[in-house]
């Protein structure tokens, strides 16, 4: 098998005395969709934030396209470093709370980073941004401000904004958790489409159905460790670990 796009070995993260990640090993192949499940506080969001160095891990290594991104000076939050540029130009992230820029129009949200970071011309960035927004079904909202959009629409803008940087890997951090139930589907559909086009995706989610259908790999986390991982059919339908069974029982019971 080819080298994984993303390879985590013994990743540990602490917040003061609190150990949030206790040695995570994970391989993600190109084009794979990895769904991460687990109760709140299990460290799944922190894991995503480690991968794009919003929270640099204290120990372990994270290899992105065979480059170790945790080594070297200045990978701390907010600082400038070679690793940060390398990671953030290859890894896109979508947040639970959308985090769209409220003072910019929908199109400007999407074109800002390509213009400022990649140095694209305004025309080029707008053309590509428009195409991306059409792709997520928001071609008619270009000049709107985010606050005028529904949560589902906002989240699709956030996906288009991340895609505008042409990432190799996309991270989704509970992107449907803040949405009204009837808006969840449109966001999941967008992600489905993205997956079918071969995007490598790391998806923290509570949508078991999505994980079953789209996931190539399912990871169940609890207490800062990976409890169980494997094919969706194995982990979700035939869990071996007691904790996984318990969690799935609770989630599917709803």
């Amino acid at each position: 098998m080819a080298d994984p796009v993303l390879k985590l070995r013994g990743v540990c993260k602490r917040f003061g005395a609190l150990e949030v990640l206790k040695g995570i090993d994970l391989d993600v192949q190109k084009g794979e969709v990895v769904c991460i499940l687990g109760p709140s506080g299990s460290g799944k969001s922190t894991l995503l934030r480690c991968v794009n160095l919003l929270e640099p891990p204290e120990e372990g290594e994270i290899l992105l396209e065979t480059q170790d991104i945790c080594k070297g000076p200045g990978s701390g939050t907010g600082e400038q470093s070679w690793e940060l540029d390398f990671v953030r130009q290859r890894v896109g992230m979508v947040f639970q709370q959308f985090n769209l820029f409220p003072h910019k129009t929908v199109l400007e949200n999407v074109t800002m980073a390509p213009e400022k970071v990649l140095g694209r011309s305004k025309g080029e960035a707008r053309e590509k941004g428009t195409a991306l927004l059409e792709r997520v079904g928001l071609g008619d909202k270009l000049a709107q401000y985010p606050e005028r959009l529904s949560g589902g629409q906002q989240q699709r803008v956030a996906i288009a904004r991340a895609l505008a940087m042409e990432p190799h890997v996309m991270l989704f951090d509970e992107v449907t958790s803040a949405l009204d139930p009837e808006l969840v589907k449109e966001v999941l559909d967008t992600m489905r489409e993205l997956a079918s086009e071969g995007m490598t995706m790391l998806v923290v989610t509570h949508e078991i159905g999505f994980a079953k259908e789209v996931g190539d790999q399912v990871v169940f986390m609890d207490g800062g460790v990976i409890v169980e991982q494997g094919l969706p059919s194995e982990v979700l339908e035939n869990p071996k670990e007691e904790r996984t069974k318990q969690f799935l029982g609770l989630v599917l019971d709803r």
Partner: protein
Amino acid sequence: MSQFFNQYFNFDVMREHFGEVLVGFLQNLLVFAVAAVLALALGLFLALLRQLPGKKLMPIRFLTIAYIDFFRAVPILIIILMISGGVPFLSFLPQEVRIPHWFGRPDPFWYGVAALVIVYGAFSAEVYRAGIEAVPRGQMEAARSLGMSHFQAMRHVVVPQGVTKIPAPMLNELISLLKDTTLVSVIALSESVLVSREVLSERLNSSSLTLTAIFFVIIILPLARVVDKLIARQQLKVTRGSHIEVA
């Protein structure tokens, strides 16, 4: 009672010295205008220094906080006196800095401006900081996750949103600044208070000071109303829930 009115509201004195006091007041406005622009710029610069990320830049953050705390605590009058009484004797400085006469303004003008900028830079830095810190953390994270540097994220995402939250408190600082321009009278800048005091000692009548006070009220009252309006508008925005982000 008529004695009281004669002392403070002698219209003859006001009329006779109206011109001088007005010219003095224009001097206040000029000091204010120059100091306000520079203080707002310095304040933003200090606020940005204070927000610099990472462990390595801790000394810079620390020094910035020390500056801001110190100059918010020291009376402006002391700063004015220390600059006008000290800078002229710092012989390592070039002549045009020690005794500045830029743009045809006398040296007390520039000493006063310098003192006000140093102090109000510190005050406005705190106002900017309140605005910057009111922007949800997710905004910085989103910008950073898109590959923007800390500086780019500040410039294009955080600061533009932060400054929309602070016009009211900033205007309050500017009102204080305008009033504090009268302190420059102690180093013999012919602004309205100094002119009025000269009239006072010449005529043994305080009406010129009353006139000066009226000038300030005329300028500042509408500004205070603007502050009220801005606060009301901000309140409306918040209660309407136009900010969707949940912190």
